[in-house]
Every structure is written in structure tokens, then in C-alpha cells.
């Protein structure tokens, strides 16, 4: 209670925000134009519907319900777009404006906890977005006049709008805490918002597809033993991501960098566990679902799709975590420092030297997450996957009679698809170690490469871009079918270090993952070792170059340890 009081009622930043935000006319103009755009669009939708109805009266059997639906979809989409583009605009200046106004350092030196800074900036933006979103509620009520929209749908929409705006604001805040100027921060916010928005769009179309197939608006999935709607999963993911982004801001809003580096790392670890388990559940439960629906949904998602998300996310995480800068001291003691990175203390510090061990930890967690997914699906598959009642043998009435079915059903079901390209869960479980070996060697190989690049270019952002480009050359370029044959031949050289190759081999050919499949693991290990050797050479070269006249910059934690 005391803490809450400090956070909200006695928080100088919140107080200042409330004193100044609604001062002047700017906020009211934003509100006015927001509602204006929505109203105008809604009217247009309505009139186009009316004219359509006049021209083709036989097309509609219910006179108004489609109008309600059309208006609802327009409002949802328009509002989602507005919210997505307004939220980062509010927060991406939150910290950079302080930097530009030169009040940032003064604020850092006060005794406001950093957590309060993040909290108040987020809540100020979130409160304003809530004001916008809820002021449009009366417009939504018009949909109910026409009918065709259920209140549950409205609630889902609002939930998603809120979590989406939370994500947008935390993204803006993160860039704001990292960059030096508002212009850069705004640009980066919108550039990075682009990808999540597309992913969100796909997720939503997938959900509505499932909804259409199942004829129910609340398609439930089981997640680590909890029953959730797909919207719920999406909301959890968005909130989780927002928390991670906020924790990144938290580590940047401070005079001394690298303190509390454990927070984003720990959260990322948890998130990766959640995501890999969840993706597994989604894949497996939609399989069970399609089986239950029989001919309605012919496509089954192969079990190997569970590897898709990790195969995409681990390279991205390598690029994010294994780039940065070594201090001169670290570079001079590179071997000692890299070894220190493997100590528990090293991993919790958010420094470049401990990025490899941290990423290895992530690989372990991801594989564990996938395995949890398999194991839980084997155990709880029937009970929670939401099978319809027409298959009474799969509907456990009591736990004692249901247990046998519960265990056998997924295997039995998956075995029927074995002929195509789905592998049985048990078989997948047996591959855990191989998968782990692949991910670990991948992290080592590509991670070392990224570290080498960032040491050479000495700029984190350039290093990130270069690593991403090299990843794209290895992964995305071979996917292009209209490629020059010579180039294609050249690109096959990179196959052993392509993370997607694992997926495609087991995906299309039904081949099990092998530790030394096509020497992939070995090539990755060699690439990593080579990168490390080059890094070592560079550090020797650098030490020779500097001589004794340079001050060795010791890392922060080293200084504290010595004191």
C-alpha cells in the first residue's frame, strides 16, 4: 500500500505529468481528431453499405446485421491502426525529450527510483491511450443497434487494443531510453513496430480462421495446464513483451550502464520458455482440433512446426545479445573475460562477454519448453484441447476412466499421420538432445561471429545490421527460387550453418534431427572457434598498437569488485 502510494500519489513524475499533460489545447485536439476520423469512417462505411443494399437487395437476408459487422470491423481496424501509431509517438519522446531539454541528468541525480520513472512514463502514455480508446466506446455501441456483433467480441477487441497499446508504448519508451534524439527514437519505434504489427495481423487472421472453422468465438487452448482463449495467449505474449521492453528501458535509464542487466535477461529467458511451450501447444492442439473436425480441415500442421519459432527466434536473439562493445580492458583480457562470462555472476551482468553463456542458457530453456509442450500434450492432450462432444471416447467423464485414453490418444492420432510428414511425439522427445546440440552449436558459432563483427566495427548498431545481413544471406537468399545457378551453388556452401536447414530437413523429409547432421553442428563449432581465434588475434594486435599510454578502461563491475 505504501509502495502504491509512492508510485501513484506521491510520484513527482506522475504529478508533473498530470499537471502539464492536459494543460493547453494539444491533448484536446488529438482527442477531437481521433474521434473525428473514426466517426467519419464509420459514416462512410454505413453509407456504402446502404447504397450496396439498395443496389443488390437480395444479397442480404438480415437487413442490418452485416452493417453492424461492417462498422465493427471498420472501427476495430481503424482504431487499431490509430492506437498503434499514436502510442509510440507519445512514449518515444518520453526520455529523449528530457535528454534534449537537458533535464535528464538532473532527473537521474534525484532520488526517484528508475522503476518509478519507467512506471510513470508508461502510465502517463497508457492513461492517455485509454482515454482515446474508451472515448470511442459510444461509437461501438452503434454496432449493437444494427446487431451482428457479440459483446464477447467487443471485449476481446478492447483487450487487444489495450495490450497492443501497452506494447506500442513500451516499444517507444525503450527506443527513447536508448537513443539520443527524439527523431531517431521515433524512426526506430515505427521501423520496429512494423514487424510485430504484421505478426499480430497474421495471428489475428489465424484466430479468426480457427473461429470460423469451429463456429465458436472462444476457441480454447490448453497452456501449461491452463485453459486460455487464443486471444488470451496473444494478450499474454503482448504483455510479456511489454514487460521485457520496459525492463530494457529500466537498464538504460541510469547514469551507469550495465546495472540490472539481469532483469531483461531473466525476463527474456522466462519469455522464451513460455513462447516455445506455447507454440508447441498451439501446433499440437490445432492438430488435435483438426483431427476432431474431420474433413473440415484437411491440413494438419506437422509436429516439426514446433521448431519453427525457436529456429527464427534464436538467431534474432543472438543478433540482439551478442552485439555490443568491449571496453579496452576487456579486450586486453579477452580470454579471462570470456571465461568470467560463464560464472553465475557473469551471466547476470548484461555485458557482451557473457552473451554466449546466456544464449546457451536460452537454447536449453527453449528445448526444455518444447519438451514440456510434448510432455504435457502427451499427458493432458485430450482433457484440455477442446474436442467436441461427438467423440465420446475422448471425452473423459471421470478421471479414472479417462486416463487410458488420455495417454494413448495423441499417439494413436499422430501415428495415423505418420505416413505423411508428422513424427510421433515420443520420437520428437527422443530427439531433444540432438536439438539441444544443434541450438547450442548454433549459438556458439553465430554468436562468436557477431561478437567478432561488433569488436571490429566498434558500433553496436552497425554490428547488428551486418550480422542481420549475413544471416539473411545464409537463410533467406537461398529461398529465392529465381536465383542465378552459380550463386545458388555458392550459397549451398552455407547450408551447414543455416538454422532453417534443420527445420526443412525434418519438415519435408521427415528425417530426424541428428547431432552431426550434414556436419552442421561441427561446421558451426568450427566457425565459432575460428571467430574466437580472430578475436584473440585482434586483441593482441590492439594491445600492441596501444602500448602503455592508453588508460585501461575497466568495466564497472570490475571496479566495484576491487573497491
Amino acid at each position, binding site marked *: 500500500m505504501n509502495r502504491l502510494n509512492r508510485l501513484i500519489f506521491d510520484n513527482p513524475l506522475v*504529478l*508533473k505529468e498530470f499537471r502539464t499533460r492536459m494543460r493547453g489545447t494539444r491533448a484536446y485536439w488529438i482527442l477531437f481528431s481521433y474521434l473525428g476520423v473514426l466517426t467519419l469512417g464509420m459514416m462512410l462505411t454505413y453509407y456504402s453499405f446502404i447504397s450496396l443494399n439498395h443496389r443488390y437487395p437480395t444479397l442480404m437476408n438480415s437487413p442490418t446485421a452485416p452493417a453492424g459487422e461492417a462498422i465493427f470491423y471498420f472501427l476495430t481496424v481503424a482504431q487499431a491502426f490509430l492506437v498503434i501509431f499514436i502510442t509510440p509517438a507519445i512514449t518515444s519522446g518520453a526520455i529523449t525529450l528530457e535528454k534534449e531539454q*537537458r533535464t535528464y541528468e*538532473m532527473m537521474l*541525480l534525484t532520488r526517484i527510483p528508475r522503476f518509478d520513472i519507467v512506471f510513470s512514463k508508461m502510465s502517463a502514455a497508457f492513461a492517455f491511450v485509454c482515454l482515446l480508446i474508451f472515448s470511442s466506446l459510444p461509437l461501438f455501441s452503434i454496432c449493437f443497434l444494427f446487431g451482428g456483433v457479440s459483446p464477447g467480441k467487443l471485449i476481446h477487441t478492447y483487450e487487444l487494443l489495450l495490450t497492443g497499446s501497452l506494447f506500442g508504448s513500451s516499444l517507444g519508451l525503450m527506443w527513447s531510453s536508448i537513443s539520443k534524439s527524439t527523431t531517431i527514437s521515433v524512426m526506430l519505434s515505427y521501423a520496429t513496430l512494423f514487424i510485430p504489427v504484421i505478426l499480430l495481423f497474421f495471428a489475428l487472421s489465424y484466430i479468426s480462421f480457427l473461429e470460423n472453422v469451429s463456429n465458436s468465438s472462444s476457441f480454447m487452448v490448453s497452456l501449461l495446464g491452463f485453459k486460455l482463449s487464443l486471444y488470451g495467449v496473444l494478450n499474454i505474449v503482448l504483455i510479456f513483451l511489454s514487460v521485457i521492453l520496459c525492463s530494457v528501458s529500466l537498464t538504460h535509464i541510469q547514469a551507469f550502464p550495465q546495472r540490472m542487466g539481469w532483469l531483461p535477461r531473466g525476463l527474456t529467458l522466462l519469455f522464451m520458455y513460455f513462447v516455445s511451450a506455447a507454440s508447441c501447444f498451439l501446433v499440437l492442439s490445432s492438430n488435435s482440433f483438426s483431427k476432431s473436425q474431420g474433413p473440415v480441415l484437411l491440413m494438419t500442421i506437422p509436429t516439426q512446426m514446433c521448431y519453427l519459432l525457436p529456429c527464427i527466434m534464436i538467431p534474432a536473439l543472438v543478433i540482439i545479445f551478442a552485439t555490443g562493445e568491449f571496453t579496452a580492458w576487456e579486450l586486453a583480457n579477452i580470454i579471462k573475460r570470456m571465461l568470467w562470462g560463464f560464472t553465475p555472476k557473469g551471466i547476470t551482468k548484461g555485458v557482451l562477454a557473457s552473451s554466449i553463456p546466456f544464449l546457451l542458457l536460452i537454447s536449453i530453456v527453449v528445448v526444455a519448453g518444447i519438451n514440456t509442450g510434448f510432455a504435457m500434450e502427451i499427458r493432458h492432450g485430450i482433457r484440455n484441447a477442446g474436442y467436441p462432444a461427438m467423440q465420446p471416447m475422448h471425452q473423459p467423464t471421470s478421471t479414472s476412466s479417462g486416463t487410458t485414453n488420455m495417454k494413448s490418444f495423441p499417439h494413436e492420432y499422430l501415428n495415423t499421420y505418420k505416413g505423411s510428414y508428422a513424427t510421433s511425439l515420443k520420437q520428437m522427445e527422443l530427439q531433444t538432445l540432438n536439438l539441444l546440440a544443434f541450438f547450442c552449436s548454433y549459438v556458439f558459432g553465430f554468436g562468436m561471429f557477431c561478437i567478432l563483427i561488433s569488436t571490429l566495427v566498434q558500433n553496436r548498431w552497425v554490428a547488428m545490421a551486418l550480422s542481420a545481413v549475413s544471416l539473411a544471406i545464409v537463410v533467406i537468399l537461398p529461398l529465392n527460387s529465381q536465383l542465378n545457378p552459380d550463386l545458388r551453388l555458392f550459397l549451398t556452401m552455407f547450408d551447414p550453418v543455416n538454422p532453417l536447414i534443420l527445420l526443412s530437413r525434418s519438415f519435408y523429409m521427415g528425417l530426424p534431427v541428428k547431432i552431426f547432421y550434414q556436419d552442421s553442428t561441427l561446421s558451426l563449432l568450427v566457425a565459432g572457434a575460428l571467430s574466437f581465434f580472430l578475436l584473440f588475434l585482434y586483441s593482441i594486435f590492439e594491445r600492441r598498437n596501444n602500448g602503455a599510454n592508453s588508460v*585501461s578502461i575497466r568495466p564497472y563491475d570490475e571496479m566495484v569488485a576491487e573497491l
Partner: protein
Amino acid sequence: MSIRQNGTERNHSMAMIEISNLSKEYRTSGQKLLAVNNISLALDKGDIFGFIGPNGAGKTTTIKMIATLLVPSSGSVFVDGLDVVKEPDKVRSILGYMPDSFGVYDDIKVWEYLDFFAAAYKISKDKRPAIIDDVLSLTDLSVKKNAYVESLSRGMKQRLCLAKTLVHDPKVMLLDEPASGLDPRARIEIRELLRELQRMGKTIMISSHILPEMEEFCNKIGIIEKGEMIVSGDVRTISRQVRGNQVIEITVLEELERAVSLLESMNEYVNDVKIMSRSHNENQNTHFSSSTGHSLQFGYIGEPNHEYVVLNSLVDSGLKIRAFHSPKADLEDVFMRVTKGLVN
């Protein structure tokens, strides 16, 4: 103002600010720049330290390291016995920092601005109004209490920033060029304010390139150039160090030559007798006509505090002495000599 924060542990040393072998290297895209190079310094309670150096000498960098805004590359800084790297939060609560370029928030009133910082320094709600009134009157801004901050003039903003620095009654104040951009009147006012703060027992560190205003109230100075502290210590000691001895200036009504020869004969006390130019004389004492006195300068090399021996012998020989004094150490002079590499 409330006196808070007394539970801080004290180290073996009693110095308020203790800097030893402090260095800072900036690395920007491969280039290295040693902005501060091996500086050591100790300031006691109540000291006012003038930190002087040309542009880019590393003053701001040093002050930021003391203010817990930059991590030193090597060396250590203790403020009131607290390590700035190890316990930045404790240091921040006893420290007032006024940056060289600072800003103010938009759409906010003067008292709200101060209230914001008071709240940010965890001063309880009921104590804030009194403190705000206090610091406003101390900085002569009481009339502007309800004005919007962006409507203040530059000098007023500067004073507001100083007021903000005082809100939590810090023991140590770091003022980075507090007087730049101020008119002479405001400058004098700031000087008065600093004297007042010194009386309150605060330790103050001021950086500036405007030298004459520093010697008025600093008891210690340090001169920094290219990241290296060339000289530091007591103002008078430094000027003696620079000139080799203490300088005494006398004004005689007539018989200049006899005075010079007399002084030159006392070679165990006096060296380097110089006749000051008449124009200098005029400037210094404008209410005298140009013929009413010649001034000359000599270096005193005798025992400290025995300058009266010279005066006595001059008076005994019948010379008409109008003035006998030791001019204040001229910082401009010190600065120019030192930064030209005359003294190492």
C-alpha cells in the same frame, strides 16, 4: 531548510571530496580521447574550489564523474567518504549538481518545478512549501513564484536551477559554470549567494573560465589543461608558487629612485624590484592625480609574516609611503602563466 541525511558512514579520511588518480577516456567509434588524466584532489568541508581551465580541458568531465553521471576509467572519487561508483545513490542525496547546460520542463510553473525536484528528493509534502519559499528568496526569485518557467530570462533560469540544486540542502555542490551568460549584476548576486552558502558550511566546486570572479570567493583553485591538473591548492600559495615569492606593492609620494635603491639594498628580504607604470597607477587609484605617487612592486623572500621589517626600514629612512600592500593573487596572471607552460 531541512537538514537530512546524517547517517552516512565516514571513511578514514575527513575530506569532503577526495579524488585520487582519476582518469577518463572517451571512446567514440574507435577514437580515444583522454579527457581527464590522473587527477588527484582533496577538498575539506567549507572549501570553495575554483576549477579553472580553457575549453575542452576536462572540467565538465571531472565534475560529472564526481556527480555520479560518468564512470571513471580508473581512479577513485569519494564524496563524504562514499565511493561514487559503489554507492551512487547515497552520494546523490548529499550532492547538488548544476549542469553547464540545463533545461527546464515545458508548461510548468516555477514553484511546480521546485516542488517536482523537492518531491524527487523525497522531501515530505508538508515541508515542501516552506523549502520552496526559502530557496526562492535565497535566489531572489520570490516574485516569479507563479510564473511559467519558460517565460523566465536566461539569468533567472540559471538562478532557478541553482534554487533547484539547493532544494535538498546538499552538503556538496558542484556548479558547472554557474555564472556564464549572466549580466554583471546577476554575477555579483550569484557571488553573494555563494558566500552565503559558504557560511552555511557547504563544500562547493565551481568551474569557470572567468578568472577574476573566482579569486573573490574561492579559497582553493585548480587549473586543468588537456585533462591534466597543472596546479591546485590554496589561491595564495599558488600565486606564490607561480611567481616564486610573495609580491608586495608600495606607493611612495616622491623619491622613487631612493626607494628603489633602498629596497634593492635589503637583498635578504627583497628581490625583483619593478617600477609600475604610471598608467597602471592611474587605473588603480583614479581619484589621485597622476603626479601624486609612484607605485612599485617587489618580491618578498623573507620569512613569512615578517613583511613589516621592510616597511619599518622604509619609514625609518623618511620615505613618504602612501600604501604598502600585497595585491591579491591575480588569477588571470596565474592562469596565463600556467597554461602557457611556464610552470610545470
